[in-house]
C-alpha cells in the first residue's frame, strides 16, 4: 500500500474536494475543546486537537438508533443506516477502541446494525500532535496504531504523511491531486513522531505492564479500594458515556401517535447507572455503588480482555478522568493502588 506526502495546502484542497462528493465527519473546535461533527469546510478541520469530548464510536453505535420498525399485528422490519461517510481525525487510542468494538460486535452473533455503519465508513486516523491533559495512551500501548484505519495521517511539519492501509484508503488517496511519494526522510520524521508519542502520551503512568492487569484484578475482588472510591460516586454514568470502549445499551419500544406503527430503538446505557441490572419485580443484582464501580474497571481490565484475546479495554484516552466530577474514575489511580498493595505476580 502506498505512502503519500501531502503538503498542507494540497491537503486542504483534497479535503474540500472530498466534502463535495461524500459526507465527511471531522474533528472541529467546540468552544475551547474539540468534537467530531459534519465537516463543512477543510478550514474547520482541527487535526492538532488534543482529545475530543466524545469518542468517534457514536458514528457506529449512535446514542439512539432504530433497529426495527413495526406495525401492530403486521410484523417487524429491519432498519439500517447505509450512508457512506469519511471519518477524519481518529487518534490511535480511539482507533484501537474501534478495532475492539469491531471484534465485540462480530463475536458470538454479528450485529448487522453496527456493521452497516462500520462497513460504510472510511476511517482516516491521525497521529497525536498535542497530548491532552489526561491522556495515558503510552501506558496502555495505544499511543500509535498499526491497523484498523483506511488511511493514517501523520503531521510532519509542513506536510501530512498519508499511508493507505486498505483498498478504500487507496481509493481515497487517489483523489489527492498533487500528492507526492513519501521519501526516506519523510518516513524518518514520521518514525520520530511515533517514538515521541509512544513515550509522551503519558500524563498518568501505569505502574505495571498493561498485560498484568487481568491477573492483578484476579486477586483484587475484595480490595477496599472499590468501597473507598465508590463512596463519592454520583452514579451519573459519565465515565460510561464518554468511554470509547463502552458499548452497553438498552432496547426500548417507541410507539407512534397512531398506536399502530412504532420503532424499537437501542440507546446507550451504562453499568454505573443505578437500575442497570434491575429486573421486573424490583430485584437489582448490582445494587451497591461499589459493585458497579468495580464492574466497570473489571470490564476494562479483565472481562473484555478475556473475551477478545488479551487486549485491555481501556485505551488511555483520559476522557473519564475529565468527565468525573468526584474525580474517582481514573483507571490508572485504581490499578496503581492495587499494584502498590498487592504487588505484581
Amino acid at each position, binding site marked *: 500500500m502506498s505512502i503519500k506526502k501531502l503538503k498542507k495546502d494540497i491537503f486542504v484542497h483534497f479535503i474540500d474536494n472530498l466534502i463535495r462528493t461524500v459526507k465527511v465527519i471531522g474533528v472541529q473546535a467546540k468552544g475551547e475543546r474539540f468534537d467530531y461533527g459534519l465537516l463543512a469546510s477543510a478550514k474547520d478541520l482541527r487535526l492538532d486537537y488534543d482529545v475530543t469530548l466524545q469518542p468517534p464510536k457514536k458514528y457506529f453505535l449512535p446514542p439512539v438508533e432504530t433497529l426495527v420498525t413495526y406495525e401492530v399485528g403486521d410484523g417487524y422490519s429491519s432498519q439500517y443506516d447505509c450512508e457512506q461517510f469519511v471519518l477524519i481525525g481518529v487518534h490511535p487510542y480511539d482507533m484501537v477502541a474501534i478495532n475492539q468494538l469491531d471484534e465485540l*460486535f462480530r463475536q458470538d452473533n454479528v450485529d448487522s446494525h453496527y456493521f452497516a455503519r462500520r462497513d460504510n465508513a472510511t476511517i482516516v486516523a491521525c497521529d497525536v500532535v498535542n497530548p491532552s491533559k489526561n491522556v495515558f495512551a503510552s501506558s496502555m500501548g495505544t499511543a500509535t496504531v498499526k491497523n484498523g484505519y483506511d488511511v493514517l495521517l501523520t503531521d510532519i511539519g509542513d506536510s501530512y504523511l498519508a499511508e493507505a492501509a486498505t483498498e478504500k484508503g487507496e481509493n481515497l488517496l487517489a483523489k489527492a491531486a498533487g500528492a507526492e511519494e513519501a521519501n526516506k526522510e519523510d518516513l524518518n520524521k514520521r518514525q520520530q513522531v511515533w517514538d515521541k508519542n509512544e513515550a509522551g502520551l503519558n500524563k498518568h503512568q501505569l505502574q505495571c505492564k498493561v498485560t498484568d492487569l487481568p491477573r492483578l484484578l484476579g486477586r483484587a475482588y475484595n480490595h477496599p479500594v472499590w468501597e473507598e472510591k465508590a463512596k463519592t460516586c454520583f452514579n451519573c454514568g459519565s465515565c460510561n458515556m464518554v468511554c470509547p470502549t463502552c458499548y452497553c445499551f438498552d432496547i426500548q419500544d417507541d410507539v407512534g401517535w397512531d398506536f399502530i406503527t412504532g420503532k*424499537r430503538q437501542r440507546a446507550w446505557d451504562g453499568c454505573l447507572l443505578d437500575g442497570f441490572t434491575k429486573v421486573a419485580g424490583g430485584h437489582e443484582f448490582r445494587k451497591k455503588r461499589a459493585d458497579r464501580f468495580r464492574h466497570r474497571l473489571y*470490564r476494562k481490565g479483565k472481562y473484555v480482555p478475556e473475551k477478545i484475546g488479551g487486549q485491555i479495554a481501556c485505551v488511555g484516552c483520559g476522557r473519564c478522568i475529565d468527565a468525573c466530577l468526584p474525580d474517582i474514575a481514573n483507571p490508572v489511580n485504581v490499578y496503581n493502588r492495587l499494584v502498590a498493595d498487592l504487588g505484581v505476580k
Partner: protein
Amino acid sequence: MAICQRCAAEKDIYLPRLVTLEKKRLMNPTEMYIRLSFDESEPFDFIPGQFVEVSVAGIGEAPITVSSSPTQKGYFELVVRRIGNVTNAIHRLRIGDKVGIRGPFGQGTYPTEEAKGRNIVFICGGIGLVPQRSFVNYILDNRADYGELTVILGTKCMAQRFFHSELDAWSHRNDIKFMETVDEANDCWLGNVGVVTTLIPKIEAELRSALVFICGPPIMYKFVLLALNEAKVPHENIFLNLERKMKCGAGKCGHCQINNFYVCIDGPVFRFSDLSIAPEAI
C-alpha cells in the same frame, strides 16, 4: 430510510419472527400459560434450557425460558409471570394474536447428552418449575436414555401451585419420583409442609452420583447448595438456572453480565463449578 441491498440481505439478530398465540390459560393469579405455534416451513428448534425474547409491539421484549420439551413438535409453551410492563402485556394477548419471537438463545442449556445414563434430580422453587419442566418432559419422552428421575418442588402456598394435572400425572408414574411441599398450608393440604430443602433428605436416588438441576428464587439457591454440599454432591454435578435482565440475547448489551459470564450466551443454565469465579452469580 433507504436500505442498501447488502444490508437488506444481512441476518438481523434484533428482528423478531412472528408466531401465533394458540392457547392461553391463567394457571394461578400471576402465572399465564401460553402455547405458541409456528409455521412448519420455518421450524423453531431449541434445546431444553434455552430462552426466547417475546415481543409485544409498542411495549417491548422480555426474556422467557421455553417450558415445553422440544420433543413436542409444531409449537412451544411458555409460562409468564405478570410482573413488569411486557409480561403484563403478554397476559393481555388474545388467542390468534401474532407474537414476535427472537431466539432461541443461550449456549448454556441442560446437558441432554452428558445426563444420559445418569440419575437426575430437579430441585424447583415456585416458578422455577417452568424451565425445568422442559428437560423433565424431554427425559420422560426419551425415558430409556436416562437413569432414575427425581423432581422436588417447593411452592410458597397452595394458591400459587400450577400445572396441577401434569404434576398429578408425574406423581402417579413409576418412572419419575415426584415430591412437593408448600411453605404454608391450611387443613385442605395433605402433603408436605416446609421449604424445599426439607425434601432433600427424602430423595431416594444416590445424590452423590446424580446430576442435580436447581431453579428457583435467588434465596433458594443458597440453602439448596448448602444442603447439597453437606450431601457431598460434587460441584461439577450441580447446575443452576440463572436469570438476569437479558435485553439483546446476543451477548452485546451488557445487562445480564455476571462477572465474566453473559447469562444470555454462556447460560442460562450454568455448571456450579464454573461459577466459582463468579461471586455475583448468587
